[in-house]
């Protein structure tokens, strides 16, 4: 028993040296020893095998479910407009000789529309995790899948062991090292006087730490169109799925962050980062003042030595199947916009942060116990606000470009609907349309 503690300490030392040597150092300098590649290949093959096995047993049913859970059409909707449908509804009734053009049957149209939106609507499904076509051997996605074969169950068991006992501690260690290094490194660089080397060093420190964190999440990122990478003096906008988006993007370049000042661990990170290169952190009270926010962003953008700003205009996390309304604030500044589309592959792990369901810590733990994080990042060509285009139209244009590239659904709804209610003006739209049909007709027919 007495030998236990020294032995344990020795094992821990070896473990740390291995991590530093095999994972951290390559990550810091941006090359790879091929360990993660091998892991990914094995993982992909395993999941493919599992999928085939599952599909063989549930052949027809899976095919039907696949087409159904694509989200774009559980129910068949009438394509007609309100006017066309109401006209059809009224065709069987004679026009009343007296009074306005209203009949009780008009309400049937609204009833049907209401029931359709209860069965399926475009918005509420964006705030919960995407459904998988086939099970990926994680407990958390095991919704309806039943016992299929011994080998599959064994694989699932092995998977749990590997993920929780080997991968998770490894990843947690890496992330801790990464964050500590970020704080120490940026503070150290911050102490240097303003040489030209300083900005180069600060970029290097930042990228290094984010690379370590990315390894800590087993992230396999594929960057496309790197010639369109955001330049200094511009604003980079992307669709938002989780806070990990920042790690994904910063692995390939340095950005200035925008956000609220937090306390605790986040606050420590924020203060450290600001020491080595300028970021834009706002106090909570300052966030309400739109002019102040706008001015600070404009100042940052106009200074050509400062890094491009990274902004997520949706304002909240969406589940990576669609892109919701972009808030126009960042599009009013008049700077060059560099759109970026991020699409995660849900087979390996669900990256969406459902902030009403999970806290930040439990979300990170879930991330670290998934298989891996696979995503594609597309850099789109820069966009400018065109003459005669207002900020809202510009924002929508950028949003469509991002949605198109990432294969996401382009929605007009506001992501804020996750928590807030629909604005009154939207509610009255249908009423107005209907009234103009009824009263408008009356004024023309009565004389």
């Amino acid at each position, binding site marked *: 028993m007495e030998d236990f503690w020294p032995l344990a300490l020795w094992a821990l030392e070896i473990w740390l040296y291995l991590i530093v040597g095999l994972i951290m150092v390559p990550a810091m300098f941006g090359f790879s020893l091929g360990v993660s590649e091998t892991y990914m290949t094995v993982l992909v093959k395993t999941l493919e095998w599992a999928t085939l096995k599952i599909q063989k047993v549930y052949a027809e*049913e899976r095919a*039907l*479910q696949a*087409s*159904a859970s694509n989200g774009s*059409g*559980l*129910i*068949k909707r009438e394509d007609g407009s309100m006017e066309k449908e109401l006209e059809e*509804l009224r065709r*069987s*009734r004679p026009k*009343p*000789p*007296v*009074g*306005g053009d*209203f*009949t*009780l*049957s*008009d*309400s*049937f149209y*609204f*009833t*049907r*529309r*209401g*029931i*359709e*939106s*209860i*069965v*399926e*609507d*475009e*918005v*509420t*499904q964006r705030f*919960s995790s995407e459904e998988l076509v086939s099970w990926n051997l994680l407990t958390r996605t095991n919704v*309806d899948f*039943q016992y299929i074969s011994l080998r599959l169950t064994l694989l699932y068991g092995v998977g749990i062991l590997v993920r929780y006992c080997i991968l998770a501690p490894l990843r947690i260690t890496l992330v801790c090292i990464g964050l500590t290094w970020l704080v120490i490194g940026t503070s150290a660089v911050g102490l240097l006087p303003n040489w030209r080397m300083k900005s180069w060093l600060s970029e290097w420190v930042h990228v290094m730490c984010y690379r370590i964190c990315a390894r800590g999440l087993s992230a396999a990122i594929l960057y496309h169109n790197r010639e369109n990478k955001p330049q200094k003096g511009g604003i980079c906008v992307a669709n938002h799925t989780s806070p990990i988006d920042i790690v994904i993007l910063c692995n390939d370049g340095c950005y200035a962050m925008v956000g609220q000042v937090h306390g605790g661990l986040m606050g420590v990170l924020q203060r450290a980062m600001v020491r080595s290169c300028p970021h834009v952190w706002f106090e909570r009270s300052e966030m309400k003042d739109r002019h102040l926010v706008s001015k600070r962003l404009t100042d940052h953008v106009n200074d050509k030595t400062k890094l491009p700003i990274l902004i997520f205009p949706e304002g909240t996390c969406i589940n990576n199947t669609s892109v919701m309304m972009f808030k126009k604030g960042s599009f009013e500044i008049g700077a060059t916009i560099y759109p970026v589309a991020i699409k995660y592959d849900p087979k390996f792990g669900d990256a969406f942060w459902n902030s009403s369901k999970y806290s930040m810590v439990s979300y990170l733990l879930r991330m670290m116990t998934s298989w891996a994080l696979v995503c594609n990042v597309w850099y789109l060509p820069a966009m400018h606000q065109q003459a005669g285009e207002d900020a809202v139209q510009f924002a929508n244009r950028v949003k469509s470009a991002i949605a198109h590239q990432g294969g996401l659904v382009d929605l007009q*709804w506001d992501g804020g*609907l996750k928590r807030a*209610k*629909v604005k009154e003006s*939207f*509610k*009255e*739209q*249908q*009423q*107005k349309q*209907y*009234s*103009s049909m*009824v*009263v408008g007709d*009356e004024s023309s027919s009565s004389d």
Partner: protein
Amino acid sequence: MGALQSVPGHPEYVDLAEKTGFSFEQIGILHKRFKQLSHNEDTLLREHFSKIPNLECNPIRSQIIGAFFDRRNFRQDGEGTVEEIGFEEFLVIMSHFRPPTLHMTEEQRESVRRDKLRFLFNMHDTDNDGTITLEEYRHVVEELLSLSEAMEKDTAKSIADAAMLEVASISMGHMEPDEFYEGITFEHFLKLLNGFEIESRMNVRFLNMDTTTLCK
């Protein structure tokens, strides 16, 4: 009982399928939707419905939501309202909107028709006295017409009155000046909508689904 398409792990679906006529697949989908709306709880409350943005924009949303909590629609000859519903009640309400299947006799079609019209009637007869009174009728008109446009309450009132007059003349024929029309009873309602093909208009059609139901 013919070819039962069994889904392992959901024996309770058999009862529900028999009761409502939905297929197992449709029940599965609606169950997922129920859980999504109720945030994984067992019962649905009125406020869960107000989270659906498209529904919030609907002028008669309160009647539609009310219909889900109205015991007259649960096919158990109950009356009054409830405050929360389980999945079974949700499914029963949805079954009012099932399209009629292809091989239905004339009698079955008629009963489907009556059933749908009864549902719509209950939606507007909010005080459950068996008639849609002038007040209730006016209420519907007011909800559908926008109050913010330079329209006053009087305009809505007069439109409702005129429409009600027309209904009275169709249902009762000629009325004496001192006769008072109490309201639209369910029989009058059926008569009014005689030519109306409601069984093809009040449906929610599921796409790509295996819509075979159990053979009875």
